[in-house]
């Protein structure tokens, strides 16, 4: 694995990989080679990067249909991901999953679900298994603000807190579910306070302060490895692109460009990049471009699964 001179460099490398991979996906998309609904995380990548930086290979991370960032940060293979988006046999799920259901069991990437919220209890189940197996691994479950409206969110937090399971819940609160703003869905903007009533540490980050998140989560996860039980963070953030698809959509009227610009001015990809040693940054960028280029070529050249394979893997 690449060694970086600073935490900043490491986080930048993680963020930049996702940013650039998704930008390339967005460029390829109009060619119709990727026949999969892509939910880009551009602008939000720093959260997964900051959190997952503290995880080991045997830890687990779960994400959603907006999961490229979680997948890559947790060590998912870029080639497998790109091939999966292309529907190729060499994809991480042999073309059965597409962008919405990324998985990499060997790296602790829990399979992602496109039914909002359903990944949350599944992640808790992994934490239960860790406890039963007396491992000191942890689980991080990433989710959107919308998913916290599903009943299984409350059920999952209660159970995890009740059994003191090693799981960190991370809400990426981009204040949108598709095009619906928070105020049409939440009675009160008090999610963190609500979760705190379960008796677990719950912290809100209003700003994209990647180093603050990184530092906080480091402590939380250390505690978790010594049986402190679950924790929760809520990170306000901003989705730059449309809900699904390769474009921006500030012109659609459901949100303002001003809000977008405020967030973009604080783009962690840029600010963190600027803080790096220039040479190191250049090297990182160059490696990333090369790996993305290789992944696209890998995906393009890989074969599609044959029709007969349809019947594989129905039962284990």
């Amino acid at each position, binding site marked *: 694995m690449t060694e970086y001179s600073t935490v900043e460099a490491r986080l930048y490398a993680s963020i930049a990989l996702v940013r650039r991979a998704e930008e390339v996906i967005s460029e390829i998309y109009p060619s119709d080679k990727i*026949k*999969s*609904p892509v939910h880009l995380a551009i602008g939000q990548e720093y959260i997964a990067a900051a959190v997952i930086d503290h995880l080991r290979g045997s830890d687990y991370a779960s994400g959603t249909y907006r999961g490229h960032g979680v997948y890559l940060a947790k060590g998912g293979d870029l080639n497998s991901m790109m091939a999966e988006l292309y*529907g*190729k046999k060499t*994809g991480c799920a042999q*073309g*059965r*999953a*597409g*962008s*919405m*259901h990324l998985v990499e069991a060997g790296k602790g990437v829990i399979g992602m*679900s*496109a*039914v*909002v*919220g359903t990944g949350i209890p599944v992640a808790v189940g992994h934490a239960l298994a860790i406890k039963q197996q007396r491992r000191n691994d942890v689980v991080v479950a990433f989710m959107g603000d*919308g*998913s916290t*409206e*599903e*009943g299984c969110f409350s059920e999952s937090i209660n159970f995890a807190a009740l059994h003191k399971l090693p799981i960190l819940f991370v809400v990426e609160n981009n204040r949108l*579910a*598709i*095009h*619906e703003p928070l105020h*049409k*869905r*939440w009675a009160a903007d008090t999610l963190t306070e609500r979760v705190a009533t379960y008796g677990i540490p719950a912290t809100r980050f209003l700003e994209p302060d990647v180093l603050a998140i990184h530092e906080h989560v480091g402590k939380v996860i250390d505690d978790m490895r010594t049986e402190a039980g679950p924790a929760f963070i809520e990170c306000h953030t901003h989705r730059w692109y449309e809900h699904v698809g390769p474009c921006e959509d500030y012109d*659609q*009227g*459901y949100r303002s460009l001003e809000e977008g610009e405020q967030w973009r001015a604080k783009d962690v990809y840029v600010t963190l990049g600027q803080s790096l040693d220039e040479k190191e940054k250049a090297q990182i960028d160059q490696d990333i471009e090369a790996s993305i280029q290789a992944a696209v070529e890998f995906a393009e050249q890989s074969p*599609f*699964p*044959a*029709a007969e*394979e*349809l*019947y594989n893997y*129905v039962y284990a």
Partner: protein
Amino acid sequence: MSTPNTSRLLKYFDALREGAEQAMDADSSVFMMGLDIDDHKGIQGSTKGLVDKFGPERVFTTPLSEDAMTGVAIGAAMAGQRPIHVHIRMDFLMLCMNQLVNIAAKSHYMYGGTVQVPLVIRTMIGKSWGQGAQHSQGLHSMFAHVPGMKVVAPSNAYDAKGLTMQAVRDNNPVLIMEHRLLYGTEAYVPEEPYTVEFGKARVLREGNDLTIVGVSNMVMEAMRAAELLAEQGIEAEVIDPVTISPLDFDTIEASVNKTGKLLVVDNAWLNCGFSAEIVARVAESENISLKPAVKRMGFAPTTCPTTPSLEDAFYPNPKTIAITAYQLASGKQDWVPADDQCQLAYQTQFKGPF
């Protein structure tokens, strides 16, 4: 002045919208709720503009809380309102099965006829472009299994509007199963309000050689297959059940009695499905004396994969339907339609309800 009835072509999604709009015009107790129905996309156009016309009290999005929202719709229906609850995918109904199966379907009976649940559930089946495992399921048989529910499946714009308007008038929970790939199809749709009767199948094409029953989008696929078959001299009778529950079995029975052969093409898995029900009723029928040749087609018995190379094999299509029907009708295996012919079949627009 309005355009004469029969001359107006309307798309399926527009017909869904118009049906709801006219139902809401006619009855102030009708309202619509569901995730994203009030945004600029308006459920692929099928709810577009309704919030502007009727306001946010009668047309509103909900939190992501399918279970409770279904209970809320049920409660409102019990208290005299007529909700239309919209879900963008049928797969998500699995989150509110409890309310649908244990409350909506049962209340009228369980409470001794003192309570009614005039609830409409609109729900769409997805297909292709990587919809995959969780955005593609046709789960109608689960609902048809439960007494107290009604399930309808418009295959064209005419029925989309007429069934919507009938569903809103019905005093029971009615599930409308729509299909994403039908949204862009056109049919002649009257401008004035009308209803399509529940429990009345439609014979879309007459024929003596075999009966094909298609469900939802598979009606279209079957019609295309029938064209390919016609070129081989095989005349298929194509039946659209229109409503899954109640089911007009008489029409199917009469057809099978005539043709002696039945192919059911469901938009779902076969095992314990609606296709099994149709075949079972044919088998039980005392009006059908000879053993008919029967066959079912539907989703492959697998989860739905995203990649096109597998997904193509997951669904019946005009080619596979035609091949199966040909074998069933002729007993022979000596014909496979050419791929370019099958492509051509796909270009046919059926201006339902035929």
